[in-house]
């Protein structure tokens, strides 16, 4: 029987299988969000671990697959302990060593070495952030369960971070040309580490079909960026928005400047079509389990653009008060676009081993909930 009393739907005939999002619940989510923000401010942000957990539990519980909701099984305590580990084992020692080295080099007048240390520090922090990205992915997957069966990420965070670092260097040296390759490589790496209930995910994602779209979007983005920059300069000097220009003595041009800054991200708008193609290709490249279940993520550039612009407007015009709506919109987008094209044998969904790793969330997660 299904949880709403209806007979359990046979999985086979009603293909494709789609994720559904239970509507509503914004009030509860908003209360959880505001409570988290207020208590985080009052507790020097220490409350954030419990607040984020509370929010995630609400969000996860509204996503339904085959009549049963997903469950977030992480806890605030785990995140708190992970935070303490990272603080004492990584952040404090690394910062003290770097500060000490810099002080020693300054005192010895070895200023060239100081710059080298600065470079090594920047590279080291990039590597740590990539490690954190992988660990975060691993933690969230392992704390996500459906019908009690959890996902799992195997693979090595340091190996992932090392490759990400090399690829970032490659992207920098090639002036961005390597970006689609790096993007596809890292996504493929993560997908190939993922399994759900014993069903291993296999991805053969290639960047070959992404390059045309990437170059076109880059070109359009540059043109749009130039137009925005030009309009911004003209507006700042003529006061097209505020009505006052820099040539009017004693007037401020703040509104024009701020408007320019807020509109700057729109130069990246053409990349919505690149990302849409990337997500579609990533989903198409995936086969799950022995039965080679294939999935689709039918997102379009317009959908992604509407999603990003809508989130931008919600955050900017509500001064952050409607931030929780952006999480709901993300989940809705995923539910609307994601499809499983072949039947799943629920008997084959076997439990994954519990992964006790609990670090990574605090090294660059910020308020990224979903």
């Amino acid at each position, binding site marked *: 029987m299904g949880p709403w009393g209806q007979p359990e739907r046979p999985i086979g005939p009603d293909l494709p299988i789609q994720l559904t999002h239970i509507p509503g619940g914004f009030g509860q989510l908003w209360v959880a969000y505001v409570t988290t923000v207020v208590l985080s401010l009052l507790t020097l942000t220490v409350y954030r671990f419990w607040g984020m957990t509370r929010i995630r539990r609400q969000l996860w519980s509204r996503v339904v697959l085959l009549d049963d909701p997903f469950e977030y099984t992480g806890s605030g305590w785990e995140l708190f302990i992970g935070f303490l580990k990272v603080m004492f084992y990584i952040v404090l020692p690394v*910062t003290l060593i770097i*500060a000490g080295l810099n002080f020693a080099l300054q005192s010895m007048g070895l200023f060239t070495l100081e710059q080298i240390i600065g470079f090594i520090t920047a590279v080291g922090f990039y590597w740590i952030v990539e490690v954190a990205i992988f660990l975060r992915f691993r933690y969230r997957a392992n704390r996500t369960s459906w*019908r009690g*069966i959890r996902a799992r990420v195997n693979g090595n965070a340091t190996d992932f971070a090392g490759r990400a670092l090399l690829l970032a260097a490659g992207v920098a040296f090639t002036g961005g040309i390597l970006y689609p390759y790096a993007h596809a490589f890292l996504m493929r790496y993560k997908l190939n580490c993922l399994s759900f209930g014993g069903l291993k995910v296999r991805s053969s994602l290639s960047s070959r079909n992404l390059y045309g779209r990437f170059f076109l979007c880059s070109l359009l983005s540059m043109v749009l960026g130039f137009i925005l920059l030009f309009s911004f300069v003209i507006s700042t000097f003529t006061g097209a928005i505020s009505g006052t220009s820099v040539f009017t003595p004693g007037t401020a041009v703040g509104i024009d400047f701020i408007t320019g800054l807020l509109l700057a991200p729109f130069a990246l708008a053409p990349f919505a079509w690149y990302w849409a193609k990337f997500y579609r290709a990533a989903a198409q490249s995936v086969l799950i389990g022995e039965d080679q279940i294939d999935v689709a993520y039918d997102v379009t550039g317009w959908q992604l653009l509407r999603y990003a612009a809508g989130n931008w407007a919600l955050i900017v015009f509500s001064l952050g008060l409607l931030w929780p709506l952006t999480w709901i919109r993300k989940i809705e987008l995923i539910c609307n676009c994601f499809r499983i094209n072949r039947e799943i044998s629920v008997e084959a*969904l076997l*439990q994954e081993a519990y992964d006790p790793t609990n670090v990574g969330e605090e090294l660059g997660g910020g308020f990224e909930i979903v």
Partner: protein
Amino acid sequence: MTRPMSARNLAEASKLSSDQFDDQSSARGASDAAYFFDGHTALKHPVTVTFHTAHFTITLLDGGAPVECPYTLSRRIQPFLPAEHVALRPNNHSGARLVLVEPTLIDRLRRHAPEVLDPPFLRRSRLRRWAAITGTLVAVMAVIFVLVPAVSSVFGFLVPDTTKRAVGARTVQQIFEPAGLCIAEAGTQALKGLVDQLASTVGVDEDIAIHVTQFPMVNAFALPGWHMVLTEKLIETAESSAEVAGIIAHELGHMKLNHPTEAYFRRGLLSAVVDAIFGGGLGFESVAALVITFSYSRDDEAAADDIAINALNDAGITTQGIADFFNREAKLPEGLQKMMVNLEWLSTHPSNQGRRQIALEQGTGRNQALSPEGWRALRKVCAK
């Protein structure tokens, strides 16, 4: 035969004696009343549930041994949708899940084990959570206000003088030189003479490197390694040589107390602590660092003021100059002044009116710091 709810810690349930069985509470035969996931596969099992005094039993309608679950080892999953249903899980990492659909079953559970629906562990967990948060805050405060200053003092004391001098010289080179350094000979000589005179009265037996920079602000800085920097605008706005002398004596006070080197370490350590606590990404770091830095350099400022007034008294220089400086600094709009008095705890310096009062009350000298010629030369120190 019974089997545990898939977790090892549920195994003890099978040892429960039959006298705990409460047959009145059993709900049988309703295959849509509840369903169960055993935690091994994603198969959904229709079940019946019978409630006993200390545990409940899950009987799978599609076969298999019954599962016994003590209430004490069961947790409610919250939130769970639809909200009218109740989902339970063991209190470990097992994936076993029981979902009660039928309201009568939920009522029976409430009668037998209300603590499962409103679990005391959640209340305990909240207490534990707030204890941890409070403990963390106390620890952080102790680190910021006790450990960091103490460690900075020790580091500041241990650093060799040559290292401090190199760091000071480097800071001047990196920050103040690009804005332009003033080197007019007569002004530099007058300034150096004044600094040396005050250094001996303060009790600093070191060769002070004094710099005047065209950095666009009214300020003075004491750097590690006996480097002192005055800004051109500070000298321009000063109304007397006694005023400049008061500021120099104040900076010498910082140097005598080793504040510049301590501040160097304090900033580094605080930055590490703040980065670690605030985790990045939320944008609180800079505000927090500012507040923390503010609130505990006030003691340093007061100590440097004490030394400065004594030094001016020993040199016979009037404290009227430094009092005038504080007075001018205090001349803010009335509303802002009131706010500054209210926010004194937040400021790096004690209130300017208070400092002016102390300077006037404790000052005994009557002379200017420089001759009229010396003062004229100092005011032209940046002239090309």
